C-alpha cells in the first residue's frame, strides 16, 4: 500500500513538493529554534553562571563571545575601591579535537576553552584554579607557557590524555601540563590555555580580550561594584554573573514564546498545504477511485490509501525538515561560536508534528475519495 501511495505522490512531483514546503519549514523552525535556544542556554549556564563575581563585557553587545574589551580596562577597574581582582578571559570555541569532529555531531568534539593570564589568576586566587576547580595532576599555567593546556579530567579521559601528552585543538597543538577535576554541565569539558594563544585562535587583537571577571573584596558588595564599574568605565556593561544569566534566561523565554507562535503557525500553514494538495490530488483522480471501488475496494481501503499518501508526505517533510534544521543549527553554531546539538527528543517531537499534520491534512480528502460514487466517478453511461 505504501509503495502504491509513494508512486501516487511521485505522479505530480511539483504539487507534492509544494505541499512539503509548509511541513519542511515547520520542522526546520522547530528543530533550529529549539536547538539554538537550548545551545545558548547551556552555554550560559556552563560558562557565565559557574563563575562567581562580576562579568564585564563590551557595552550592548548582542552575544558574549562577540564582545571585545581593551586590555587597559583592567587597570582602570583595579583602581576602583572594593575590587580585589580582575582577570581577563578570551573565549575560544573548539570544534575539532585531534582533527576529529566539526560535523553535525552535536556536543562531541566541542569544549569550552578559556584563555587566561596566569599571573593575574594566581595573584589573588592563591593557587586556586581560575575556574575554581581542584588540580589533580601536573601544575597550573605559568608565565612563559605558550602551547600549554590544562584539561579537566573529563576531556583527559575521553581523549586518553595525561600530563605530558599532546592534544590538538582546532589547528593548534598543545602540551598537557595539568589536569583538574571535572566541571560538570552539559558541555562535557573545559580546557584552559594562555591568553596570547587564545587570542590568536579566536582571531582577536593583541590588546583585546572577550570579557573580564571581577571579584569584589566582599561578595555582598557585588552589585554595588558592578554599578560602579558601569558608571566609571566607558563602553562596558558590568553585571553580576547571576544577573547576567537571569537576563539571558529572559531573552530565552522570549525565544521560547516565539517558538510556540512560529510552531502553531507552521502547523496551520502546513496543514492547509497538505489538505489542499491531497484534495486536489483526490479530485483529479476521481475516475481512478471510481475504478478502485468498482473492482471491489471498500471505503476503508480508499481511506487507508489516501491517508498513506499524506502520511508519507509527513515522513518526507520530517526527513527534509530535520536535515535543513540541522543545517541551520550548523550555521548558527558557526556564527555564534557556541556548541549546540539537536536532541533525540526534539527530533521525535518534530517527526510527530510532521506526521500528525500530514495525516490530519489527509483525513478530509480521504473521506471525500471514499464517498465517491463509482458510477459517476468512472463516468460511463
Amino acid at each position: 500500500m505504501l509503495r502504491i501511495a509513494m508512486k501516487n505522490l511521485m505522479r505530480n512531483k511539483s504539487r507534492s513538493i509544494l505541499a512539503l514546503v509548509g511541513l519542511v519549514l515547520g520542522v526546520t523552525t522547530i528543530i533550529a529554534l529549539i536547538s539554538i535556544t537550548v545551545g545558548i542556554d547551556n552555554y550560559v549556564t556552563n560558562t557565565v553562571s559557574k563563575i562567581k563575581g562580576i562579568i564585564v563585557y563590551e557595552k550592548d553587545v548582542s552575544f558574549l563571545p562577540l564582545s571585545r574589551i581593551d586590555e587597559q580596562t583592567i587597570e582602570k577597574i583595579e583602581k576602583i575601591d572594593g575590587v580585589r581582582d580582575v582577570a581577563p578571559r578570551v573565549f575560544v570555541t573548539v570544534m575539532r579535537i585531534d582533527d576529529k569532529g566539526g560535523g553535525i555531531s552535536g556536543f562531541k568534539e566541542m569544549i569550552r576553552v578559556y584563555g587566561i593570564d596566569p599571573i593575574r589568576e594566581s595573584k589573588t586566587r592563591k593557587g586556586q584554579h581560575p575556574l575554581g576547580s581542584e588540580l589533580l595532576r601536573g601544575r597550573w599555567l605559568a608565565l612563559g607557557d605558550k602551547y600549554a593546556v590544562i584539561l579537566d579530567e573529563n576531556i583527559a579521559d575521553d581523549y586518553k590524555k595525561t600530563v605530558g601528552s599532546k592534544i590538538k585543538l582546532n589547528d593548534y597543538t598543545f602540551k598537557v601540563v595539568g589536569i583538574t577535576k571535572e566541571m560538570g554541565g552539559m558541555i562535557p569539558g573545559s580546557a584552559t590555555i594562555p591568553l596570547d594563544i587564545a587570542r590568536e585562535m579566536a582571531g582577536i587583537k593583541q590588546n583585546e580580550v572577550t570579557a573580564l571577571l571581577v571579584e569584589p573584596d566582599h561578595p555582598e558588595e557585588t552589585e554595588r561594584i558592578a554599578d560602579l564599574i558601569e558608571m566609571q568605565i566607558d563602553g562596558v556593561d558590568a553585571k553580576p554573573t547571576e544577573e547576567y544569566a537571569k537576563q539571558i534566561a529572559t531573552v530565552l523565554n522570549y525565544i521560547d514564546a516565539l517558538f510556540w507562535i512560529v510552531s502553531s503557525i507552521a502547523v496551520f500553514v502546513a496543514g492547509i498545504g497538505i489538505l489542499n494538495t491531497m484534495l486536489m490530488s483526490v479530485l483529479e483522480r476521481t475516475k481512478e477511485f471510481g475504478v478502485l471501488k468498482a473492482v471491489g475496494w471498500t471505503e476503508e481501503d480508499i481511506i487507508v490509501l489516501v491517508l498513506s499518501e499524506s502520511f508519507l508526505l509527513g515522513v518526507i517533510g520530517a526527513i527534509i525538515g530535520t536535515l535543513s534544521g540541522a543545517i541551520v543549527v550548523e550555521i548558527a553554531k558557526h556564527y555564534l561560536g557556541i556548541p549546540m546539538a539537536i536532541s533525540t527528543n526534539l527530533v521525535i517531537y518534530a517527526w510527530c508534528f510532521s506526521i500528525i499534520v500530514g495525516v490530519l491534512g489527509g483525513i478530509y480528502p480521504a473521506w471525500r475519495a471514499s464517498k465517491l460514487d463509482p458510477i459517476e466517478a468512472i463516468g460511463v453511461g
Partner: protein
Amino acid sequence: MNDVVIEAKNLKKYYKMGETIVKALRGANIKIKKGSFVFIVGPSGSGKSTLMHLLGALDHPTGGSVKMDGKEISKMDDWELSMIRRNKVGFIFQTFNLVPSLTALDNVKLPLLTDKRISDEELTARAIKLLKVVGLGHRIYHTPNELSGGERQRVAIARALINNPEIILADEPTGELDSKTGAEIFELMRKMNKEEGKTFIIVTHDTEYIKHNDTVYHIKDGVIKETSKRELEKNGMKGKKEIT
C-alpha cells in the same frame, strides 16, 4: 436452475434530473447462464449501462430484484456490494481505466491488493500468470502509457480476471480500439470464456464482433428483448464502428 449465474426481475432504475424523472430501466428481465457469452446491445441512452451497473453490483435499483448465484444483491449495503464486486465480478471498461502510475503488474494486482486473504507473493504470481495468458508476458513492468490501446485492454482483462470472478462485465470493451485490435480482444475474451468457463456480459452498440449463434439481448426504452445477430441486421443495426 443452478446454472443461472445472474437473474434480474422487473428491474427498475429511475434517476432524478432536476425536476424530471428519467426512467432508465422500466421493468427489465434477464437471466444469464453460467459460462455464457452474452451481448447486450442498444442505442445510447437505452439503459444498457444502467443495466450493467446493476448487474455488476455497482448500484442499487429503484425496484425489482437482482440475484447473483441465487442471492439477492439489490438490497445489500455498500460494503457488501464491494465484497460482491471483489469476489464475484470483473470489470472491463471502454477507456481501460488503468492507473497510469502503476506497472501492468500492479494494475492487475490492484483489485486484491487490500485483500488480506492472499499474500503478495501469491498475488504477484497469479498476476504474472494472467499477464502471460493475455499475451503480455513481455510487458509486465511497463506502465500504461508505454502500452498500445490493445495492450492496455489486455491488461484490463487480466485485471478483471485476477479475483477469479464468475462474471465479467465489459462495457464497450472495443470502443477505443481499431477493428483489428478489437477483433483480437474479442478473440481473447472468447478464449477466456471457453477455456476458463467465465461468464461474459458485453455491452456494446457495435455488432461487428457478434457471431450468429451468440445470445444477444436488445435493450430499448428500458426493457430487454432477446434477439440474435440476424434479427439485428434485419432491423438495420449495422456492424459499423464509431470513429471517435
